[in-house]
């Protein structure tokens, strides 16, 4: 019978392969199939990974929220690892969104940044997850610190719906192209390109979450083994 670790490794590599194929297909579709937008020109193609990157940021933030909530209910290393991995994914995709958005805005609005409600709330959310990671990096790995971080992971998610509804509630310059009534993507290939972007970024986020949580979990197990070694009177400090 195959070891569970091997099965998981196989699944991971399969997911990696599917993601690679999906990304290559998506790049082909964006650049060679999807039409150029009539008024903005080629820069509109940023949209096909700018929007999915924020969506992937939501996925990471959601993972951080769920992991943190689960940790507060019953503390385990796996839940903490999942929350931390989620925060990291949120920061990575938030950074991509915050870089690519202004590049689009430079062309569409004539300026890289405006204090538009959606931009401001998105920046705030990104900073919340940066704060989470800074806290985890510098506050130590004690159970109190982990619980405090978990509380931040839960409270940090409160801003996510505000980002989403900020455009509807407060207006602003940010486009609202994706709507329930079909949205502003008028060409079917544009819709397909965006759908492909969502698929690719979902797969990439899943891979990142998995890989990062695994490293985090290994780190927790190692820390426990080191503590056991010290309890047995072994000195685990590095020599010279």
């Amino acid at each position, binding site marked *: 019978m195959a070891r569970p670790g091997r099965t998981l490794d196989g699944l991971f590599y399969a997911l990696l392969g599917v993601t690679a194929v999906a990304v290559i297909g998506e790049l082909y579709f964006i650049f060679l199939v999807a039409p150029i937008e009539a008024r903005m020109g080629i*820069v509109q193609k940023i949209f096909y990974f700018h929007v999915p990157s924020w969506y992937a940021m939501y996925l990471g933030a959601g993972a951080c929220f769920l992991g943190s909530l689960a940790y507060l209910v019953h503390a385990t290393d796996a839940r903490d690892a999942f929350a931390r991995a989620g925060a990291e994914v949120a920061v990575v995709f938030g950074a991509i969104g915050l870089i690519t958005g202004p590049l689009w805005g*430079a062309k569409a609005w004539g300026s890289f940044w405006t204090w538009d409600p959606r931009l401001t709330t998105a920046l705030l959310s990104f900073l919340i997850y940066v704060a989470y990671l800074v806290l985890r990096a510098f506050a130590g790995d004690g159970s109190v610190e982990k619980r405090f971080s978990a509380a931040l992971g839960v409270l940090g998610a409160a801003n996510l719906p505000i980002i989403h509804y900020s455009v509807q509630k407060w207006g602003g310059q940010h486009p609202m192209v994706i709507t329930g009534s079909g949205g502003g993507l008028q060409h079917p290939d544009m819709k397909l390109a965006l759908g492909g972007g969502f698929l690719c970024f979902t797969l990439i986020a899943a891979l990142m979450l998995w890989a990062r949580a695994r*490293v985090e979990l290994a780190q927790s197990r190692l820390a426990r083994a080191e503590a056991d070694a010290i309890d047995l009177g072994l000195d685990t400090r590095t020599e010279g």
Partner: protein
Amino acid sequence: MRDVAPFPSAAPSSTPDDRSTSFQAVEGNAKEQYSGGALLVTAYAALWVVLFAWVAIVWRKQGALNMRLLDLERVIDKAAAKADEAGARAEVTVTKKK
């Protein structure tokens, strides 16, 4: 590449709410300030740079983890060697007593 896609023929509206429901360039900004192609390439480059930076950070973390693991293995090996030595010494003592 294919032809330019037909876009909604509605004339640009002036209210802020309408303006935020579709893609529209800023009015009155006739001259191109930034090249769309350059912005697109920069955005794609940034995407990959951020992702590769993340891979590098995880790689570094795994490297640090490996170092700690090596330290732990070294300490365990040392302790095992000491235990073996003590066991051998005890065996010699028992043999001598016999």
